[in-house]
């Protein structure tokens, strides 16, 4: 696929008949990525939504080779599969992991760091829905500031989660990884292109894709793509790449859309007051000042 777009994607389905909730952003990311990588992708999914909805014997929903890993072991199992298949004489395959935010930034970060440090030839995709949705919306290391989860309740004393998201993209980049990227299912063509690009690069590839969860975010199922666009448009997420030791910004909104509008559409942010929103905007502006200074734009 020389110039992949959503329209040109394969009609073949590799993740089909699963039980994901209506409007699931994570399943959209898995579906699109596997269409890019094709039949010879070997997917590894840890405990989490995608394995819970896709791997219930005898209802098994991947038409490519797929396996559930331990929660902490997405990257280490990818390493083993890549090494094992290579040892058995295979070369035409892609070992790809799909782990959620908790599986990546919390329990799986050690194995991921190990794989990147060894430069194992794998693609690791973090489908980030910003909380432990599979277990009922608990805070993860990638839950944003202010979000209400079942373990960061919003009351009059504490307004939800008090800590910002871990910066997984730059953590991956800090290893000197051959390729890392951020993406959003709201900008699906950008995501598809990044998966395609990653599949052509030798060594470890990390793609961090925002994948809204209607249930956890408190939005309607048909708002997933829209809200995944809006998080980029309002500047709370950004589309970027890290390659050859350099950061590149792929998409620069002319003017940011309203952060408040983005937040207030979602049940998880409904409780935020003006001070909270100011804090979020200030942190966005600080981040973008950093991006302007350190990221090339093309």
């Amino acid at each position, binding site marked *: 696929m020389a110039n992949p777009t959503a329209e040109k994607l394969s009609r073949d389905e590799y993740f089909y008949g699963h039980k994901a909730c209506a409007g699931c952003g994570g399943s959209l990311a898995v579906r699109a990525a596997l269409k890019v990588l094709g039949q010879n992708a070997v997917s590894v999914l840890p405990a989490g939504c995608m394995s819970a909805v896709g791997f219930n*014997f005898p209802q098994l929903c*991947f038409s490519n080779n797929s396996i559930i890993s*331990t929660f902490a072991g997405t990257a280490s199992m990818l390493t083993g599969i890549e*090494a094992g298949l290579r040892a058995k004489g295979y070369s035409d395959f892609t070992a790809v992991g799909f782990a959620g935010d908790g599986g990546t930034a919390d329990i799986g970060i050690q194995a991921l760091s190990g794989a990147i440090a060894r430069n194992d030839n794998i693609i690791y995709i973090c489908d980030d829905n910003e909380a432990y949705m599979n277990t009922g919306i608990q805070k993860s290391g990638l839950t944003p500031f202010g979000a209400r989860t079942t373990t960061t309740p919003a009351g009059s004393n504490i307004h939800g989660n008090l800590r910002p998201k871990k910066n997984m993209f730059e953590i991956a980049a800090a290893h000197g990884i051959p390729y890392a990227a951020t993406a959003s299912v709201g900008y699906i063509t950008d995501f598809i292109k990044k998966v395609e690009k990653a599949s052509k690069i030798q060594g470890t590839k990390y793609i961090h894709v925002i994948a809204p969860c209607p249930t956890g975010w408190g939005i309607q199922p048909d708002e997933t793509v829209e809200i995944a666009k809006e998080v980029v448009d309002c500047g709370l997420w950004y589309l970027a790449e890290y390659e050859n030791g350099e950061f590149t910004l792929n998409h620069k909104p002319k003017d940011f859309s309203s952060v408040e509008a983005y937040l207030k559409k979602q049940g998880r942010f409904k409780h935020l007051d003006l001070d909270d929103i100011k804090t979020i905007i200030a942190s966005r502006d600080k981040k973008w000042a950093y991006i302007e200074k350190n990221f090339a734009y093309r």
Partner: protein
Amino acid sequence: MSRKFLSGNEAFAEGIRLAKPDVISAYPITPQTIVVERLSEMVEDGSLKSDFIHVESEHSALSCAIGASAAGARAFTATSSQGLLYMAECLYYASGGRFPIVMMNADRSTALPWNIYGDQRDSLSQLDSGWIQVYAENAQEALDLALMSWRIAEDKRVSTPVMVNLDGFVLTHTYETVEIPEQAQADKFLPPYVTDNRIDFANPKNLAFSAGPDTNYIFKYKAHTGMLAAKEVVAETETAFAEIFGRQYSGLLDSYRTEDAEIILVTLGSIAGLCREVTDRLRAHGIKAGVVRIRYMRPFPNEEIAAALKNAKAFGVLEKDISFGNEGTVFTNVNSALQKAGIHIPGYNFIGGLGGRNISAGEIGEIFAAIQSGANSVNFLGIDDAEKTGGDGNGKSNS
């Protein structure tokens, strides 16, 4: 065939070289380190064509081995103690997925208190993890098990991972003369691993899936019967091994002078040699002693234990393990074997060697004397008054 003066770890590494695993993923921990160092050197000098993966933890070591096995590759790892506990989740994963990985475990005490020396509390705590567990006595057996374990694990009737246990330091670091087989012999004994339980591009698979209440028990039952099938496969494997290498092993356990023994000491691992030596001394004084060394803790040799102990008047179990609040786990298992066989003789548990504490010939002599005269149900070597330290106070019989 050549002879070399090797430690248990080094002998095991030689056995692994002969088994030619495709993938080795390991993380260092004392006293396992020498085995992975030697394997690294073999990869470097080209005498072992394995992909050696420097994982960042034991959890990843086994997770990686599972991935490699799912790709149809032969995968090896090695660990010890805290490392075994750290990877515990993956133990169940490997056995549940029926991935025939072989792992060497250097038996070592578990913290707290921290201790790097040998006891068997690490591996015995994982008896229920679904792995075949075998305990080597000496360096030659360690090497031979490094070869035999693959053939047992990979047998279609078994498809179960194998944990080969070597007593930390006492076996891993002690040097003995070891016969090293020729590669051609090893190749004849151990064919390449071929399986359907793997990633298949012609017929894609969904592996390591979930199974709910309607089907889960079927998978567990099959894991159980696969493990039980290993009893027969161990025997077949040892016969084939003897034909090629000339060394015959004795199956799930190893009995010494038990035929007419009145008092029998059951144990496992490297302490068995000293127990046999003490037995000979006692025999010289007309005391009919015998020793059973359990080789395989899983599958457990229920029938073999019953057969070995059925004519004894009393028995003891000496183990480097304690299940706090009860007794040594080996003792529990041995009692269960006897109960099922309808054998009701007094039995006593001797807990020794914890944290690497030496077990002397004198103490083993005292153990035999205690078996003969009666003792507490649970006895800690080195502590006189068992009641002070958790002896159950039930007196002299547990039957």
